[in-house]
């Protein structure tokens, strides 16, 4: 079937939560938006809200509405999607950031995109451990869940690789929507001697970034290039984010849709995208160049090459 701007591929993205996290969910939405602009694709976004009892119904309802492609993210949605997919053979399903069990063979219309984000986080951790003055780095987690831990475990592994003596303090906020708390947690970590903070906590994390800005400490962004987000509006904030661990969800979905239009997308299987695919990585922008010394940057690039070559194995909390 040929899709055109007049007869576009109809795609629905069911957000398990709401947009506005400025990272994971928004990133996917941005990729879809780009697809809608550049490809013969029409995109609908459904935000199913924070009540998890609503997620499955929203996915099922969207599927019922006759879209060509249904997109959703994370392990929270995988099970629901895998249950629905066999009943809707005409519809295509894309899950990102997780994969179902394809071995049963009944998920020929489902595509999974997974990211080796720990590899990127490894690099950020490596750089952080090299540039910390105090030898102490703080992490702030929204909750202790897979997606979050995938970042922190890689980050810690990288930091230890760079400097076995580096101390990492970790605080769990228990919420993704309390920036004031995120800020307090970061301030407390700074007060206890940390000089770099790595928040992986959505809106709560934004507060931690602000703490770094106010205290003149450094921070690592998460999911997307967060320095770029602040650039212009809040230059002081952008100035302290020396890099970000990027999970290019949007780009990968864009590519998946492109391939769906071409008919080359490998439905019925899962993709595991890593550094080599460019789907994950650290932001090497002007702030990175400014705040990270050239020798460290070179070391980081060397580490990256080793990971891609398989000489360094970065652990993953995802099986």
């Amino acid at each position, binding site marked *: 079937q040929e899709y055109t701007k007049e007869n576009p591929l109809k795609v629905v993205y069911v957000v398990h939560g*709401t947009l506005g996290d400025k990272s994971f969910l928004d990133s996917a939405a941005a990729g879809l938006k780009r697809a809608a602009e550049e490809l013969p694709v029409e995109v609908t976004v*459904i*935000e*199913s*809200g*924070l*009540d*998890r*009892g*609503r997620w*499955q*119904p*929203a996915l*099922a*309802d*969207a599927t*019922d*509405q006759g879209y060509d492609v249904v997109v959703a993210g994370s*392990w*929270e949605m995988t*099970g629901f999607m895998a249950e629905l997919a066999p009943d809707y053979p005409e519809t295509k399903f894309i899950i990102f950031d997780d994969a179902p069990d394809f071995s049963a063979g009944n998920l020929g219309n489902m595509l999974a995109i997974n990211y080796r984000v720990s590899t990127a986080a490894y690099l950020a951790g490596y750089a952080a451990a090299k540039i910390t003055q105090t030898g102490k780095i703080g992490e702030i987690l929204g*909750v*202790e*869940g*897979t*997606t979050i*831990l*995938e970042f922190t475990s890689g980050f810690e592994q990288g930091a230890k690789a760079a400097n076995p003596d580096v101390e990492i303090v970790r605080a769990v906020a*228990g919420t993704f929507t309390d920036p004031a708390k995120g800020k307090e947690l970061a301030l407390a970590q700074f007060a206890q001697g940390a000089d770099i903070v790595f928040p992986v906590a959505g809106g709560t994390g934004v507060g931690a970034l602000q703490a770094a800005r106010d205290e003149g400490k450094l921070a690592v962004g998460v999911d997307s290039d967060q320095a770029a987000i602040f650039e212009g509006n809040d230059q002081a904030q952008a100035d302290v984010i020396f890099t970000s661990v990027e999970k290019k969800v949007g780009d990968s979905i864009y590519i998946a849709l492109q391939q769906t239009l071409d008919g080359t997308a490998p439905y019925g299987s899962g993709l595991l995208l890593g550094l080599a695919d460019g789907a994950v990585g650290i932001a090497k922008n002007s702030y990175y160049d400014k705040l990270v010394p050239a020798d460290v940057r070179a070391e980081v690039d060397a580490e990256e090459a080793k990971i891609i070559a398989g000489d360094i194995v970065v652990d993953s*909390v*995802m*099986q």
Partner: protein
Amino acid sequence: MSTSSPSRFALVGREVARAVIALAIALLVALVVILATSADPAKAFSTLLTAPLSSNRTIGLWVDDVAKLTLTGLAFSLVFQAKQFSMGVQGQVYMGGLFAALVAMSPIGATPFAIPVAMAAAMCAGAVYGFMPGYAKARFGASEIVSSLMLNYIAILVVNYIIRAHLAPAGSGQLVTAKFPETAILPAIIPGTRFDLGIVIALAATVVVWFLLYRTNWGLKLRLVGHNAKFAEYSGIRSSFIMVSAMTLAGSFGGLLGAVFVQGRAFGNLAQNFDGNMAFEGILIAIVARNKPLAVPVVALAYGYLRQGAQLMGIRTDVPTEMISVVQAIIILLVASSFTLPGKKFIGRLMGRSQTATTAPEAAK
């Protein structure tokens, strides 16, 4: 029920008429909001009004909501009738959910006894959790509002912790337990939907609460304590015992709701933050139902319909999700209002006495 006077049906009729008119106004306001935010307002509005009936699946969603709203409404009605303002249903839901999950995940979960045993466990857990603020109130005079709110937060955090650290599949980092065995999940009444045994449990609970309140000695005592604790004491009723037992019993219904949550078709597992704050909507149900158990499912039915309609409108149309809560707020405000309807005086005379809202001089009596 107790105060049923000769004009009882007329009174109920008036209430219903008032509610219907309020609802109509609320929907009108909702329509305005929709007109302002939607490119296809007609579709959005008709979705709001009809979507819950659009398929078996959506009917299941509605009925599932009704079951849960009924249970939380009942729990709140019970404590409100005893003039206690415990806000603890949410904590009870989490405790109940936890214990139901523990049973479901134990060897019993794979047996036919899974459902009753899990429910009993959940009810006991909820009862203990309802008992605590009641006892603190009766024994120490500690405000049940504050203690129960604090216990809610504690329950959520503790259950979240237990899920993450002990119940979630090891190493997965997922914040949810594995699916329970099918024997531990409520059977669906309409297969493939959320229309499950939960609604039957909720209706049974309604009858039980009604029976306890209006047909038993304990219930009469409870209502007398609620009306006038001093009088109850004078009559020889141990009001602190009644108070604590009412809060404990309400807690068991909160716990039961927890079991219905986690064992229902909607979940079938225990996840962090599973209740979506629905427990608190019971306050609304109880107040609108005037704490009358038999009115609770009726109110839940109507409110649940609108709730689901609004949700589906958010999913199926371009009305922004955020506007759903705005519409919901407007509906609550207007349904709760009692405004003067045209010809109210006339209707009032036809229908007999009106219980106009208490103004200060009347309160002096």
